[in-house]
């Protein structure tokens, strides 16, 4: 299950981003047509009572402090902008979501659970690190394409150190100790985003996970630049990639379940988190770029809309 944005990373993001103060307004029971209109979440202050969803789209129970809450939210100069993404393919995407959900519960999770029981966590982390290290060409080239030359240098240094002293990438000495070279987790979707290409709309690919037309370009780019694509005959990938999925899933078992429990509509939660994650990633990459540093946030009609 190769993702444009790895599903498990997204789950982590969502899990980290979902606080009790966030309420997802979309009703899991509502029809796909209704769910195209996504209500903006309301962030409650710590200790306050979150708005209660009535089950009707766009309508919440009257709360005596709601006006005050809204005022606080609207006036908060530090509030994170809410990023949304168009979802005209929601019927297809929801089917895809159900497929991925069943794939996770019926295949990935049982295998990953057994694998987790057999293989110690440090070894599984090393395997994950190995795959990450092998994708160095993708990150290096994208850093160059983004005019982030220091990032390209850091990636080159990380790859060299981790390959030589990290036993082929199984360990990550470059991130620790006195070296402290931070990972440059970038891809072709982010590069296109920095060039001004908008998201387009939301696509939830079966197996591959959340994406958009722009980020789907990354699927081809990653395949061509991933050294593991050239490792042995074509069917070698049939073994390598599922193993990678199982290994990564074994490190986050339970987080997807937590997300499902916390979110009223996990589909909407994943979609919104995906859009927000990508917008933040591109913004962060722009801040590092020599050329794109001063270019504003992507708010093109085709891209994700950013609202305060």
């Amino acid at each position, binding site marked *: 299950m190769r993702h444009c944005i790895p599903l498990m990373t997204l789950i982590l993001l969502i899990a980290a981003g979902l606080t009790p103060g966030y309420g997802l307004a979309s009703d899991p029971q509502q029809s796909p047509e209704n769910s195209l209109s996504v209500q903006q979440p309301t962030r409650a202050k710590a200790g306050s009572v979150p708005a209660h969803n009535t089950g009707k789209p766009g309508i919440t129970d009257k709360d005596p402090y709601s006006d005050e809450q809204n005022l606080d939210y609207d006036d908060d100069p530090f509030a994170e902008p809410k990023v949304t993404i168009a979802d005209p393919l929601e019927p297809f995407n929801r089917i895809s979501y159900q497929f991925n959900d069943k794939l996770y519960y019926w295949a990935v999770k049982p295998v990953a659970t057994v694998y987790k029981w057999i293989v110690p966590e440090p070894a599984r982390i090393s395997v994950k690190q190995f795959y990450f290290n092998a994708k160095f060409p993708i990150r290096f080239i994208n850093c160059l394409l983004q005019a982030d030359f220091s990032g390209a240098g850091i990636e080159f240094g990380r790859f060299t150190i981790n390959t*030589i*002293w990290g*036993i082929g990438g199984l360990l990550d*000495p470059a991130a620790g100790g006195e070296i402290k070279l931070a990972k440059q987790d970038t891809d072709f979707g982010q590069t296109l985003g920095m060039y001004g290409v908008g998201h387009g709309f939301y696509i939830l690919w079966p197996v591959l996970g959340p994406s958009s037309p722009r980020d789907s370009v990354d699927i081809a780019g990653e395949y061509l630049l991933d050294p593991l694509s050239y490792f042995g005959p074509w069917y070698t990938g049939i073994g390598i990639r599922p193993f990678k999925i199982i290994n990564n899933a074994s490190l986050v078992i339970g987080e997807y379940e937590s997300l499902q429990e916390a979110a009223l509509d996990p589909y909407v939660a994943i979609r919104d988190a995906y859009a927000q994650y990508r917008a933040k990633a591109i913004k962060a990459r722009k801040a590092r770029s020599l050329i794109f540093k001063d270019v504003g946030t992507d708010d093109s009609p085709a891209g994700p809309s950013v609202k305060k």
Partner: protein
Amino acid sequence: MAPSAVGGMFGPPQTVSRESGGLNTTIGYWYYEDTYKNDTSHPIRQHHVYSQVSYGSKNIWEIYGRIGVSDLKIFDASKSTHIYTTTIKDHFEENWKFVGTLGAKGFVAFNSIFGIGAFVQASYNFSNYTDNLVGIYHSTPFTDDLKVKNLWNVNFGIGAQATVPYGIKLYAGPFIYYAEADAQLACGIPGIQSGDQRIAWKNKSIIGGYFGVDIPLAKGFRLNIEGQYTDRFSIGSAITYTY
């Protein structure tokens, strides 16, 4: 025929891992020369590149594993002793093959500067080395395959260490070693020492000496330079990263 039994560097007697216990990883290069014999002696030469992972603790002990590749050149390996046999190529040469090494070391410190340690290290070649033999026997040209297999060695040594300013470690000591390999021709040729029966070859010397320096670099890296003398001189260097 002579065996390949490159062992590689021994390193400083004291582990460079954290006192509380931790990994250190190394990449190294070793230029190896020695003399091996059965009935006659043959100098051998190898270039060995390796990667090593070690775990040590308390500044006292360390275990390590090493995987690397090494080539093999044996001088005068195909030289004929028979009047009717002439070989066109005298040297045996083969490219990189995998070598694995395991080792352990212990150290006792007398004070903050001096200490003494001991180590044991064994290596094994996972692959055989093969080269062809071309010559003339009774005016008839021949070609034959020479195979060197089951190469292994074991080393045991003690070493004294002095830690001088800037954390530089100087060390030296004696060691004993044993190396063995089987050599076999595909078809026996008169005058060529390795016939079509397996012949075990062993190291000419059994004792040697080693000395080296281990220098701290920046950001957790260390540079190790070491020399060993048995029947011939070997030298190498390695860079270690301590986690």
